[in-house]
């Protein structure tokens, strides 16, 4: 029955996409809708730029993790030296 559920959700998902696309069908005739579309287009560009910034932040975090791990390893070496000294 899970296969059948998955099949049904797959078909329903496609029907939803078609409904969305149908709603766009008449947008060329309605100037108000065209304006909305232009705004969406601009917003998408803005979100793309934000995602680029977010991506570089994520890369920075991943780089910081590497440095922190190196720092931790060297600190653990220091601890072993102090322990040996003791």
């Amino acid at each position: 029955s899970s296969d059948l559920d998955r099949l049904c959700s797959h078909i329903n998902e496609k029907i939803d996409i078609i409904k969305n696309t149908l709603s766009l069908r008449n947008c060329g005739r309605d100037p108000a809708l065209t304006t909305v579309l232009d705004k969406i287009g601009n917003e998408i560009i803005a979100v793309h730029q934000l995602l680029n910034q977010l991506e570089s932040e994520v890369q920075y975090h991943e780089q910081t993790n590497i440095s922190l791990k190196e720092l931790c390893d060297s600190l653990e070496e220091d601890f072993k030296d102090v322990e040996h000294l003791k």
Partner: protein
Amino acid sequence: TLKDDVNILLDKARLESQESIGFMKATKLLMK
């Protein structure tokens, strides 16, 4: 909206980066 979510996550990521810089500086200082 998605744009607000991205902005919130971006601010959070930047804040955590600042905190990590401070943490690393403090660690290195004490290791000397």
